[in-house]
């Protein structure tokens, strides 16, 4: 009997490419083998290893919601060797995908609560999966608030979806850009994410806060949440470390004894506080 090769990716066709921002693209990927696609499922928060054959693999979250079947999406910034190669591909080209890996955002546990999403820059993609997964079950949650900031107006990703969320009466969207990043016709806020959050005076009662962003944003956002009474168990975030296997074997993504690939990438702030400073 042929044994399973855990490092063998699914073959995916790039069905659609969307330019999100300078150097940032979204790929919609379709399983080349229909049966594999039908058998595939994942949960929001999980990630995968995307491969450009000949260059290697790169780790991103699945940016599409798990409530939508038949395809997955990833959004990435052209930054290193593999992402640069990935960015040079065209619709119809083939890439590899291994996954889904890692733990999930426990959105079923959040039923009946209000949700406060706080994202910065290229960290909206992992959160976008959670946002849509929750919006697709909108009646299960109370208030949904999204605070999203980027360096400049051009750097905001998912502009169409931001417009859609802005229009929805059941979502409160606040967008902001760093001082100096605004354009003359910018109608959103100007200021760093923690500053804007403070100005929003968030209500912590019966609310879950989900925070994804660059380390410096997270560092200054946590104290603001604390100020408004968010307990550590109410605050979720994701960690990202360099990975190769995604399966807890290759030995590089651990933070102390915790493997980000297997035990994460989703952590509550309570869990985060127990981790040593190694991320």
């Amino acid at each position, binding site marked *: 009997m*042929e044994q399973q090769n855990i490092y063998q990716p699914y073959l995916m066709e790039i069905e659609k490419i969307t330019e999100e921002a300078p150097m940032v693209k979204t790929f919609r990927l379709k399983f080349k083998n229909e049966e594999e696609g039908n058998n595939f499922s994942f949960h929001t928060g999980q990630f995968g290893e995307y491969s450009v054959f000949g260059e290697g693999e790169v780790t991103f979250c699945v940016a599409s919601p798990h409530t939508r079947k038949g395809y997955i999406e990833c959004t990435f910034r052209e930054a290193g060797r593999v992402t640069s190669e990935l960015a040079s591909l065209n619709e119809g080209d083939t890439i590899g995908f291994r996954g889904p890996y890692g733990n999930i955002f426990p959105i079923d546990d959040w039923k009946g609560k209000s949700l406060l999403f706080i994202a910065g820059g290229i960290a909206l993609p992992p959160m976008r999966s959670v946002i849509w997964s929750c919006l697709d079950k909108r009646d299960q949650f109370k208030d949904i608030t999204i605070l999203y900031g980027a360096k400049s107006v051009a750097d905001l990703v998912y502009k169409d979806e931001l417009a859609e969320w802005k229009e929805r009466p059941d979502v409160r969207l606040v967008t902001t850009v760093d001082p100096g990043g605004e354009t003359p016709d910018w109608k959103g806020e100007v200021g760093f994410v923690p500053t804007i959050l403070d100005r929003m005076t968030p209500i912590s009662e019966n609310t879950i806060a989900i925070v994804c962003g660059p380390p410096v944003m997270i560092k200054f956002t946590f104290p603001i949440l604390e100020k408004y009474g968010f307990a550590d168990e109410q605050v979720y975030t994701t960690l990202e470390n360099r990975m190769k296997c995604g399966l807890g074997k290759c030995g590089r993504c651990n933070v102390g004894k915790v493997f980000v690939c297997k035990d994460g990438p989703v952590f509550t702030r309570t869990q985060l506080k127990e981790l040593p400073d190694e991320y």
Partner: protein
Amino acid sequence: MEKQLKILKYSDLSKLIEKFRSQGFPVLAPVRKGKVVEIEQVQSLDEIALDVLLSTQSAKKAAFPKVEKVLEYTLEKSGTKQFPVDPADYKETILFGVRPCDASGFKSLDAIFGEEPKDQFYLEKKGKSTIISFSCPVADEYCFCTSVGGGPGNTAGSDLQFTGISKDEILVEILTEKGEKLAATFSDLLTDAGKDIDKSKFLADVKVVFDVDGVVEKTTASFNNTALWLEQSLRCIGCGACAFVCPTCACFDFQDEQNTKKGVRLRLWDSCGFSLFTLHTSGHNPREVQSQRWRQRIMHKFAYMPEQLHVVGCEGCGRCSRACPVDMNIKEHLTAIAQI
């Protein structure tokens, strides 16, 4: 199974290798290559360096090679096609003349690669390897197997163990069913041994230098002991030699190699001692300085693995100390941790 004891004549060792070869088994054994001793495929006994204390590299490559193919693909106009690399495509192999620390080193690898989801590349090769270890009549100052639960006559991980008990005779311990199956193929070379052979008389005396449970406990509590890790690693140049000779180190990397038409994805040994190991594309590195990388090496083996996989990731072979170009000695470092 109950251990069986047999006697084999030294003068029949050559016939033994011939028997293995004639049955088509590849035989991997320590072979002198200039100044180093490699574990390599041999055709006859005279190639085997049975007199060396330890091969330069461990025996792990029999199941976890330095470089191995995990994927093959073609790049075609009509779209990429990939071909499964069938891990089941390996031969029954005999690992001959390795040391007890090599044989027991596989238990760390078994734990890492055997954990779900199972790594069949390793498990297939390991499953098809029969390990004949030779107990150690001598040891050197780098050896500390007895401090980490092993010993010069430790049989854990071996299918058969050979111990020289006189100028002419080898005591053969048949330890597993796999070993029994192999021994049946050379039963004509074996005679029954008396039950009262005291093997320990023929083994090296390796003194216990620290209490491993104490080291595990203290390592686990020492993550934030920055001064300790800094002091121990001041000399470390991050060359990774320790990981490459280690029988239990399992960290790996993937690299693709290809021409315009086809390619392979390779799995290669890697080391937590390398500065690039954890470097993010952004430039951020969670283990920015060498002391953090040294801490990871020690904590992985003596804190994380014992807690999560119930195995200490060290066999006390001392290869890392012998290979270290700046003369770091793990036995001394662990002894220092035990004395905290």
